[in-house]
C-alpha cells in the first residue's frame, strides 16, 4: 500500500434495508445479528426479519437452503423490516436468485464472486451466470472476492481452508459495517467473548472483520459510504431484544412481582424453543424448567405446579398447542392460574416451521371441547412480548384462569431496540392463598379438624376468582378435577341447572376481565373512510400503511388489538365511526370472523399466508381497494 486511499465520501440517508443471504452454513443469522447490534449502538430505530430454512444444514448452494436476515434501520421510527431491499449481500447464486426480486430498482447488490462457479450456478438453477448476462443491470453492483480475500487475510494463521472459509461472513460483516458507518467495536467485543477458549479462531475472526472493514477504503468499488443519523428515541437504557427473550423476561418479572416461583414445562418446538433456552439459564431467579416428554406432559406439569401454588407456564407452537387442548380445558374447569404461550408458525400440521403466521387465533379462542372461555393476549412487537407475558400472568393469577399468549415466529425471532423497563415501576401482582382463616368453609363439620370443609368454588364477588388453597395448608384439604363442580360445595355435580350456571359463570369470569381494560386506542383518524383492525405482529406494517394512506389525504384509523378475548371496550363504537372495516391478518381470515360475528359488520379480510409478514404497501393497496368499492 503506497498511497493512503482518499476517504470515501459519506451520504446521509433516512432509513436503509439490508438483507444478508447465503447458505444456512454461511453464518448469515450471526452476521445479521451482529450488524443489528452495531446498528443499535448507532442508536437507530430498527426492525429485523430473520428468515431461515427448517433444515439445520440444508444442502449447500440450493435455493431452499438459503438463509436470510433482513434489517431495517432508520433515523425515524422504524415500523417494519422493510418492503424493499436497499442492499443485498448475496454469498452465493442461490441467495441472489431468491432475493434479487425484492431489491429496489437501483438498489445495491454485493456478491461473493468466488462462489459463482458452474456447480454453484447450476444448483441455483441459473443457466447463465447472472454476473455476466445483464441480470444485474440497473443495480449498483459490488463484486467482491469474499472467499479469496478472506483466505488471503488469514494466510498466515495456519488455519485449515475450511476454517478460513467459515470466517468469510466476518469479512462481509466488516465491509457492511464500513459501508453504513456502523461502529465495529460491538462485533469485536462479541468475537472476543465467543472465542475466548480458542484464541486461534478468535484472532482469525477479528482479522477477517478488520480486513473487511478496511477493504471498503482500499477498494474502488464503493463510491460512497452511508450514514443514518440516530433516531429520536425516548431517553433511557436500551438493549436489542427478540420476542422470545422478552417473553422469558416477562415471566421472570411476573414471578418477582407476584412473589411466586415460576415453573416452566415445555417440549422443544420451533420457533418457541428459545424461550426454554433462555429460561433454563434463569434458575437463580426462582425459575424451574422442565423439558417434558411431550406437550401434553408439559402443560400437565405446569398445571400440577399451579395446583401446588407456583406460577405454571407452558409454551409451544401450533402443533403442540393442538396437543394441549384437553389439559387447557381441565385448567379452565379446575380454575387454576396458567400461562400458555403459542409462538405461532405456518400451519396446518407441521406446515412451515420456520415461517411466521397468525393462524392459531380461532384455536386459541375456541379450540377446546365444551364451552371453554379462555383469555387471549397478543403482543404487537418483539419488545411488547415482555408486557404480554407479564400481563398474561397477572390476569391468570388474579382471575384463576389459564391465559393464552399468541406470539409468532416473526416476533419471536425478530428484534428491536427495547427501552429497558424500570423493574420497580412494574405493578405488583397480588396473590393471596386461601388460609384456614380466610377460606370459605361449609357448615358440615369435619370430625378431624372440627371445622367446616373448604369450599373451593366460592368466588370473589368482583373477579369471580375462586380461592387458591395449596396442598400443605391444614384444614383446606379438597379435591378438584375435570368433572363439573357444584357451584356451592365444589363437589361433583351432574345437576342440569348447576351446569348451566357454572358454564355461564366461567364465561362471565372471563368477560369481566375486560372491565379493567382501557378503551381501545384508535391511531390515525378517529372516524372516516376505513378502520383497519389488526392484532399482534402486523402492528408495524398496518401502522405504516395507514400513515401512507393518510398522507394521501384519506381518513383512515387503526386499531391493533392486544386482547383478543375478551375484547377491549369501545371497539364497536369505533367501528361504527368508519364507512369500512379492513382486517389484515397472516391467516385465511380469523379475526375478521370474530368481528363480523360480534358486531354484525361487513368487515373485509386481507389475508396473507406466505410465511412472511405483511409489507406495508400491500395493506395500503388494500385500503385503497376497499375505498374504491364504495
Amino acid at each position, binding site marked *: 500500500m503506497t498511497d493512503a486511499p482518499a476517504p470515501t465520501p459519506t451520504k446521509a440517508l433516512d432509513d436503509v434495508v439490508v438483507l444478508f443471504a447465503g447458505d444456512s452454513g454461511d453464518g448469515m443469522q450471526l452476521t445479521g445479528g451482529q450488524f443489528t447490534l452495531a446498528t*443499535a449502538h448507532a*442508536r437507530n430505530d430498527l426492525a429485523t426479519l430473520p428468515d431461515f430454512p427448517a433444515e439445520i444444514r440444508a444442502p449447500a448452494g440450493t435455493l431452499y437452503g438459503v438463509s436470510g436476515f433482513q434489517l431495517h434501520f432508520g433515523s425515524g421510527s422504524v415500523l417494519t423490516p422493510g418492503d424493499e431491499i436497499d442492499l443485498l449481500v448475496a454469498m452465493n447464486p442461490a441467495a441472489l436468485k431468491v432475493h434479487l426480486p425484492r431489491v429496489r430498482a437501483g438498489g445495491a447488490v454485493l456478491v461473493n464472486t468466488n462462489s459463482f462457479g458452474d456447480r454453484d450456478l447450476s444448483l441455483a438453477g441459473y443457466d447463465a451466470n447472472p454476473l455476466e448476462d445483464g441480470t444485474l443491470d440497473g443495480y449498483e453492483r459490488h463484486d467482491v472476492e469474499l472467499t479469496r480475500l478472506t483466505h488471503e487475510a488469514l494466510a498466515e494463521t495456519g488455519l485449515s481452508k475450511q476454517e478460513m472459509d467459515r470466517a468469510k461472513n466476518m469479512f462481509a460483516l466488516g465491509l457492511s459495517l464500513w459501508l453504513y458507518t456502523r461502529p465495529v467495536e460491538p462485533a469485536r467485543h462479541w468475537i472476543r467473548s465467543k472465542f475466548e477458549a480458542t484464541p486461534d479462531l478468535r484472532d482469525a475472526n477479528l482479522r477477517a472483520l478488520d480486513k473487511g472493514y478496511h477493504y471498503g477504503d482500499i477498494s474502488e468499488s464503493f463510491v460512497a459510504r452511508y450514514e443514518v443519523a440516530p433516531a429520536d428515541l*425516548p*431517553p*433511557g*437504557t*436500551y*438493549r436489542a431484544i427478540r420476542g422470545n427473550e422478552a417473553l422469558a*423476561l416477562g415471566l*421472570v418479572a411476573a414471578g*418477582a412481582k407476584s412473589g411466586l*416461583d415460576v415453573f416452566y*414445562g415445555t417440549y422443544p418446538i420451533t420457533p418457541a424453543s428459545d424461550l426454554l433456552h433462555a429460561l433454563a439459564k*434463569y*434458575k*437463580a*431467579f*426462582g425459575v*424451574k424448567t*422442565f423439558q*417434558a*416428554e*411431550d406437550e*401434553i*406432559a*408439559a402443560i*400437565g*406439569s*405446569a*398445571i*400440577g*405446579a399451579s*395446583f*401446588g401454588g407456583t406460577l405454571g407456564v407452558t409454551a409451544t407452537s401450533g402443533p403442540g398447542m393442538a396437543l394441549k387442548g*384437553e*389439559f387447557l380445558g*381441565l385448567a379452565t374447569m*379446575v380454575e387454576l392460574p396458567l400461562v400458555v404461550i403459542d409462538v405461532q408458525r405456518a400451519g396446518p400440521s407441521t406446515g412451515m416451521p420456520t415461517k411466521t403466521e397468525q393462524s392459531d387465533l380461532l384455536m386459541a379462542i375456541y379450540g377446546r371441547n365444551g364451552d371453554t372461555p379462555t383469555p387471549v393476549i397478543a403482543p404487537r412487537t418483539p419488545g411488547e412480548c415482555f408486557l404480554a407475558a407479564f400481563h398474561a400472568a397477572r390476569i391468570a393469577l388474579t382471575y384463576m384462569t389459564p391465559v393464552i399468549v399468541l406470539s409468532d415466529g416473526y416476533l419471536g425471532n425478530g428484534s428491536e431496540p427495547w427501552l*429497558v*423497563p424500570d*423493574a*420497580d415501576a412494574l405493578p405488583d401482582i397480588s396473590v393471596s392463598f386461601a388460609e384456614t382463616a380466610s377460606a370459605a368453609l361449609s357448615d358440615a363439620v369435619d*370430625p*378431624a379438624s372440627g371445622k367446616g370443609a373448604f369450599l373451593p368454588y366460592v368466588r370473589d364477588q368482583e373477579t369471580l376468582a375462586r380461592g387458591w388453597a395449596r*396442598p*400443605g*395448608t391444614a384444614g*383446606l*384439604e379438597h*379435591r*378438584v*378435577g*375435570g*368433572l363439573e363442580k*357444584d357451584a356451592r*360445595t365444589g*363437589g361433583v*355435580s*351432574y*345437576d342440569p341447572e348447576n351446569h348451566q350456571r357454572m358454564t355461564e359463570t366461567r364465561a362471565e369470569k372471563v368477560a369481566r376481565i375486560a372491565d379493567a381494560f382501557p378503551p381501545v386506542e384508535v391511531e390515525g383518524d378517529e372516524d372516516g373512510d376505513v378502520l383497519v383492525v389488526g392484532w399482534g405482529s402486523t402492528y408495524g406494517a398496518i401502522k405504516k400503511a395507514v400513515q401512507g394512506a393518510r398522507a394521501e389525504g384519506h381518513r383512515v384509523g387503526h386499531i391493533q388489538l392486544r386482547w383478543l378475548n375478551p375484547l377491549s371496550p369501545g371497539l364497536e363504537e369505533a367501528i361504527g365511526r368508519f364507512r369500512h372495516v379492513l382486517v389484515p391478518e397472516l391467516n385465511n381470515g380469523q379475526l375478521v370472523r370474530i368481528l363480523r360475528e360480534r358486531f354484525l359488520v361487513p368487515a373485509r379480510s386481507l389475508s396473507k399466508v406466505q410465511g412472511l409478514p405483511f409489507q406495508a404497501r400491500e395493506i395500503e393497496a388494500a385500503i385503497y381497494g376497499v375505498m374504491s368499492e364504495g
Partner: protein
Amino acid sequence: MPPPDDSAARPGGTPPQPRGAEGARPDTPQPAGTRKPVEAPAVPPVDGEPGEPAIPETGPDTPAPRTPTMPPAGGGPRKADGPKLPPSKKPARPPGAPRPAVPPQARTIDPEGDGAALGLPVLSRKDFVSGADVRWCPGCGDYAVLAAVQRALPELAETRENVVFISGIGCSSRFPYYMNTYGFHSIHGRAPAIATGLKATRPELDVWVVTGDGDALSIGAGHTAHMLRRNVDLQVLLFNNQIYGLTKGQYSPTSEVGKVTKSSPYGSLDHPFNPAALALGADGTFVARTLDRDPKHMQAVLKAGHAHRGTSLIEIYQNCNIFNDGAFFDFTERDSKPLRAIMVEHGKPAVYANGTKGLVVDGLKVRSIDLDGGRTAADCLTYDSSDKSLAFLMADQLFWDADLPRPFGVLYQEDRPTYDALLNEQVAEVTRQRGRGELAALLASGETWTIG
C-alpha cells in the same frame, strides 16, 4: 360389625342381583356356561357432598361374558368361528374346568376401620375418609384398595395436609374424591404429568398417583414410562383389572389375548403388556405387585412403597366384578392361590404352596421344585429384590408360564436419586453460586446503550 363411620369405605346397596337374560344384548356372543350378567344398583346420594352418578357413567348395561381365567397370552377356549390365533400357552386351568367359587362378599375391608389396631394416636383412618359417597359398583375390588390405603395412611402420613392423590380417568381414578386429603382427578392418562410438576415444585408433599390399566398403560403409557425413568418421588397405585371399567367393558392393554368383550366379540388380538416388566424396562426403582383380596399383603406393600424414595409402582390386581369378574381368582381364591401365587420377600426363600414347593434359578430359567425327599426351603432361591436380573426373570417368566406361580410383593427395589430432589438441588446450587437473581439487573443485562 363395622362401626358406622366405615360407611364410606363400604359399597352401598345390596349385593349384585342377577339381571336376567333380557338384559343381555343380542350382539354379544355368549360362551357356553356363562353366568348371567349382573347389574350394579345405583347408590342413592346421602348427605354431604353432592351426589355423583354411579360408575360406570350411565351404569353398566351389558357386562361382558365371563371367560375362564387364563394367563395373558393364553389362547383358552374359543368358538370355532373365531380368528385363528397363534399357538397359545397353557391356560391356567384346562378348558371347561370349574373356576374357584366366588366368595359371597367379593371384597375385603378392614373390620375395625379406625386404625386403632395400629396403635396410632395422631391420625386415624377416619381422618382420611371424605364425605363423598363412594360410587363404585357393589363388590368392586376398588373398595378394598381404598380401605387399605385409608388404613395405612395414619401410620404413613405425617400430616394429612401434605398428602395429595392425583388420578387420571377411570373407575379407579375416582379414588381421590374419597380421600379427605388434597386431590386432583385429572384427565385420562395424564396424572403422572401433573404429579411431576407438583413434586418438582413442592418436593415435601406426599404424592400418590392413582391409575388404571387403561389410564397408565394405554393412553398414559408414555407418561408412565417417563415418570419411572425420572424416578419422581411418589407412589403409583396401578389398579389392574384387565378391562376398561368406566367405559363399560372393552378389553384393555393388559387383557389376555382372545378376550371376548364388547369391543372384541371374536376375541381380542392384542398382545398384552406385562406391567412389572414394563416398569423394570423403564428403569423403575420400585416395582411391586399385590392383590385387592389380600389386604394384609397390600398393607405391607403400600408401606414398603411409601418408604421407598422414588417412583414406587404398585400394581394391584383388582377385580372388576361387573366386566371382568374373576380375572385374578387364580391368584386370590383359596383353592388355587397356593399353587398360582408366590409371595416374594427380600432375603426370604422363594417357597409357595404352603411350603410344599419352591423356586430355583437354573441358568437363566426359573424352575419350580417340590420340597420333599430332603429338599427344603434352604434349597430354594433366596429372593433378592435388589437384583435386577432376577427381577426380570421373575417378572417375565412367571408371568407367561401357567405352571409357575405368579410373584407378588416387592419384585425390585433400587436406590437412585429422584428427579424432584435433583432438580431442587440444581436450582439451589446455581442460586448459591450466583446469588439470588435481581430482576432489575436481568432486565438491563446484555449489550445496552443509553439515550438522553
